[in-house]
């Protein structure tokens, strides 16, 4: 009786060591690679918007496709901070020794996607930004990756709502993106 219990424990231990350990190690590497892909894609996507001043629905779709190719699902959050120099201008006009402050206001993912995907005739599918605006994007995975599942199962350190793959990038737009 004691022997067979020990055997079962031994088999379970051996199974964990021989099967789960390599699996966890491999799935961790997979996440590393996904992380790299997502980070590279995000940086390239944002830098393209920054240096051209234009975000088209094609660019966005290509970006979505590239990160989806890692086999995970992602939540993409974009933010465009639109520079408004008009308030600063008024300050200087009122008192010519002062440089006024500029104001910027934000457009978030849903508003940006609204502009990009509007299908009505005559409306554009390009978000045009100008020099001085800021554009940033953050990406994180929404599914639970294999490595997360295994970790949750064995040492339950990772809560259900955490993510392991995330990338962020942003900066000033350096070009005027409008056709005119």
């Amino acid at each position, binding site marked *: 009786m004691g022997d067979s219990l020990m055997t079962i424990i031994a088999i379970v231990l051996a199974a964990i060591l021989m099967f789960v350990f390599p699996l966890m190690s491999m799935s*961790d590497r997979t996440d590393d690679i996904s992380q790299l892909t997502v980070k590279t894609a995000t940086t390239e996507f944002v830098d393209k918007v920054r240096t051209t001043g234009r975000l088209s629905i094609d660019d966005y779709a290509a970006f979505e496709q590239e990160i989806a190719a890692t086999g995970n699902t992602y939540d993409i959050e974009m933010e465009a901070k639109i520079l408004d120099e008009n308030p600063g201008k008024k300050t200087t006009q009122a008192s010519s020794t002062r440089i006024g402050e500029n104001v910027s206001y934000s457009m978030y993912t849903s508003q940006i996607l609204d502009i990009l995907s509007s299908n009505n005739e005559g409306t554009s599918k390009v978000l045009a930004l100008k020099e001085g605006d800021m554009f940033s994007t953050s990406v994180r995975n929404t599914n639970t990756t294999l490595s997360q599942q295994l970790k949750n199962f064995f040492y339950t350190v990772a809560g259900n709502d955490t993510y392991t793959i995330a990338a962020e990038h942003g900066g000033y737009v*350096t070009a005027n993106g409008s056709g005119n």
Partner: protein
Amino acid sequence: MMKYQYLAVIFVIIMLPISLVFSAYINAQVDTLDLQISYDTKLDNTTYDAIKAFQLNTVNSSTSDIVNSKIKDIEAAANSFFTSLANNFKMEGYNSETLQEFVPALVFTLYDGFYIYSPFENTLDDETKSKLPANATYTGGEEVTGLKPYIYYSCRYVKGSMDVTITYSLDNYITIQGYDQNGKGINDAGYVLDDSLLYNSTTGEVRYRGITITSELQLREYVGDTEYAYVKINGVKYYRNANTNTWFTITNGKINQVATPFRNEDNDMGYRYYKEAYEFKERLKNYGITNLRSSDAVGVQEVQDVDGNIIYSFVDSDNKIFDFNKIEEPDSNFNNHRMAVIRYVIESNLSIALSNYNNYGTGTYEFRMPKLAEEDWARILDNVCLVSFLQGLSIGGKIYNGYSVINNNKNEEVVTENAIYIVENARIKNSTYHRVTHKGLENMVNTTTSRGVFNIDFERKSIGSTTSETTWYFYPHWDLGCYTCYVAQTNTENSINNIYEYLDGLSNKTLAKLYYTALGRERYSMYKVFRNPEEHVNAFKE
């Protein structure tokens, strides 16, 4: 009984090092790629800083278009590039000389040519050497880093007895030097414009794209908080003090009086632009230049893209370069040819500069020119810009080799098609200005009160007080940017590539007239090397 455990332990002993090494390897690769993308971004930021420095210096200077002043501004921009490079790459403390080792070239593309900032050997002739004082700061044969001579976007053409060199620019302005079809010398310059441009020498009427171009009311602008009438001639603005009928300019932030007053009259710069373009076309016909085809170009073969596909072949394509039908529109033969010439000139000179760089570098790394992507070329050919190269930095597994292209959208070098904004009512203080592509703008403007304005005239400027150390800031135009087309571009036609086609397509021609007049006026008012500045300015005096 224990053999399962033994097996497992042995398995783990074998697997653990493999897994560790594998993980370390992957991490190293990740770090390398990580560094590479972060360097790309940092290089973009550094290049933008240099462009920003160039903008600040040129927007606040009325002499920025004169060559020696321009060189000074460009050298200042190059210095800010190296300062910013040191900050961005955490190399504070290194002086620019150390950093120059990693920067094989900076390319400043300008209106009709470009500068390369790179190392070269300072060769002095015997006479100069013999005259050098003993304590001279430079010697012959020394390696220095600086601006090399200006290179024009030019191309030579030979056809029969015609032998000319045409210098192109970022817009439709060309300079021609050489011999015409009858072997007579030519030295001429002007704008080439569409066939629809007509000039009636008896009535003086100018029509362009079906629109009669006339003089417009005197331009007005603020200096400090007073509004003055002004005229911009050869890149310099002359303001009129109405009380005394005297004219003044602002040079380096100080007011200078002009001796002879200018004629106090309507602004006809736009009119002159079109009229002179018409006369230029007639002259081109007489020279026989209009018969030139791309295959007449000498010493150029083809332009290739990154993958080695031929984009433009000078030899095979037999296009008539000066086919005046829609010549200024983006896809005309002229524009394709012009861009191919510019690209060819930049590419060939740059690759020489970069390959020579290996002779100067102290490192063991052999530098190779990275291939520029098509979209980067499109930006280089579109506006004044800075192309920077960075190489030789170790990023883990490999050596970094990257480049960055950043446009300069606010400059006095070139008036691009999208540099003109339309002010709704130029007669009131706080009107609104719009982009030309604002939807429905044609119905919001009229030819009596609305006006097209060059975009840098909306930028903040400064002027020094004559009595104290105070600096006064002012905006030449008090108008505010429209929220739906200038600040955020939510109500604009964003997919327009050809502004001429767009304006021609509108049934209401008011906007087209305002735009074409302003575009012509600003292009004509620009500083041109070809003109005799004194004669040109005197033509507008009383």
